[in-house]
């Protein structure tokens, strides 16, 4: 699948001339392929990952471009076969985009209290802010950003995506909070009314559903990785370091490879 409609044919021709691995290398860097990877990672990771705002931004622009192409061609009598190929390409890309956004919303729905209260997030954002203004910016691990920094954003779409996810998360949390308060909390004795704590004597927030980070995931590394600390299994084994060969499938505890997934060294399947 090609990322831009006007390059479909060019790439198809290249396929004939280029050796297979070179062609694959070329294909693997297209935005659609990147989106596919982001989507797969997001689908398999138990927690919400960093929002790929740059990528989504580019993909949205390309989709618009493709839609225009299809529309232009459908008015004059273009070849119906190639038109349907464009349409299919477009549909598949749209599916990826929709599914990616959907998976993220569903994670937000599931863990909204946890996402809202995670302090690390808000503090991390201020650090990322500098990166963002330099134009490098993919930030917003949870796509909840204080609105002030969004105004520095150049891209309108990104602003919309970021802001609306931010508001969605805030409002949904408020809605659900209100819902449980009305139904349960307001009718319990005074010391037991917190959403986050079981009772006033709890020291930590112990009522918040959190993503389970110790579930197992299927993953594959792109390069040779060594020194992975296993976070599960018997205590004696944990000191042993684990290594990963490139291209080999592993079934491993998500917690152990969390950092490597975030840095993009490991792909989830």
């Amino acid at each position: 699948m090609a990322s831009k409609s006007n390059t479909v044919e060019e790439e198809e021709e290249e396929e004939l001339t280029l050796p297979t691995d070179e062609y694959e290398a070329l294909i693997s860097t297209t935005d659609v392929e990147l989106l596919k990877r982001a989507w797969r990672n997001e689908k398999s990771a138990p927690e919400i990952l960093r929002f790929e705002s740059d990528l989504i931004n580019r993909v949205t622009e390309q989709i618009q471009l493709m839609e225009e192409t299809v529309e232009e061609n459908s008015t004059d009598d273009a070849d119906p076969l190639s038109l349907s190929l464009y349409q299919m390409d477009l549909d598949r890309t749209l599916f990826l985009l929709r599914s990616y956004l959907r998976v993220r919303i569903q994670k937000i729905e599931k863990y909204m209290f946890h996402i809202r209260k995670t302090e690390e997030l808000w503090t991390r954002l201020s650090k990322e802010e500098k990166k963002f203004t330099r134009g490098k910016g993919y930030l917003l691990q949870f796509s909840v950003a204080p609105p002030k920094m969004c105004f520095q954003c150049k891209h309108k779409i990104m602003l919309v995506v970021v802001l609306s996810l931010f508001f969605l998360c805030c409002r949904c949390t408020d809605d659900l909070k209100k819902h449980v308060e009305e139904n349960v909390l307001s009718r319990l004795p005074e010391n037991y009314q917190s959403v986050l704590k079981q009772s006033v004597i709890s020291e930590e927030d112990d009522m918040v559903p959190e993503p389970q980070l110790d579930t197992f995931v299927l993953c594959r590394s792109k390069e040779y990785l060594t020194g992975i600390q296993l976070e599960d299994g018997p205590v004696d084994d944990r000191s042993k370091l684990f290594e990963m060969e490139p291209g080999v499938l592993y079934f491993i505890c998500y917690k152990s490879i969390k950092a490597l997934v975030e840095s993009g060294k490991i792909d989830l399947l």
Partner: protein
Amino acid sequence: MYGRKGCQLLKELSSSEKGHLPQFNSDLFEQVFAECSQHHLELQSLIRKMQEEGLDVQTAKNADHHGALIHHLALVRNKRCLMAYVYNRADNVRSLLWKIGHVLPKEIEEKLSHSEEVYFKKHSARLKSYMSSLQVDLTVDMVPPKDPYIKIRVLDDIGEGIVLSDDKTANFARHSIHFLKRTDAEQFISRGLMEELTG
């Protein structure tokens, strides 16, 4: 036994089929609340008794302290059960939005409590405003597309004059078979008005 009713409430929810929402059991729900108030009364009276005896509630480890502790723990457990009940039902209610769409059929709506209906509508409005700001409809395209067009059969009289995305109108009489764009057909399929013909 303390905490049994809360447990029953949750068992009822978890033993129902996956994705299937049972009727809101307000009867049992109220009984758990009654149990909570009872625990709270007993807890307070035990603490008052300890204070009258001049004991420090935090440090004195006599029978009354442990009694109070049991009431406290039972109350907390009941709170967890009630919260889990409401929270997981809310979870189910939200997933209905994805599976069925923004309009619920009558037989499902009856199973929701009044406040759940309100919550459903609110959440649906939130998602709608999110999607319209993105200009992407996320409720279509639930399965990976194989072909942009699919063959469908109309199961119920949908009526005439429905405008499809290519600005043409179609007459969806009952039992008629059409060849439609998948994105056009999907919303009708999820509402049970059309079925996809395969093979």
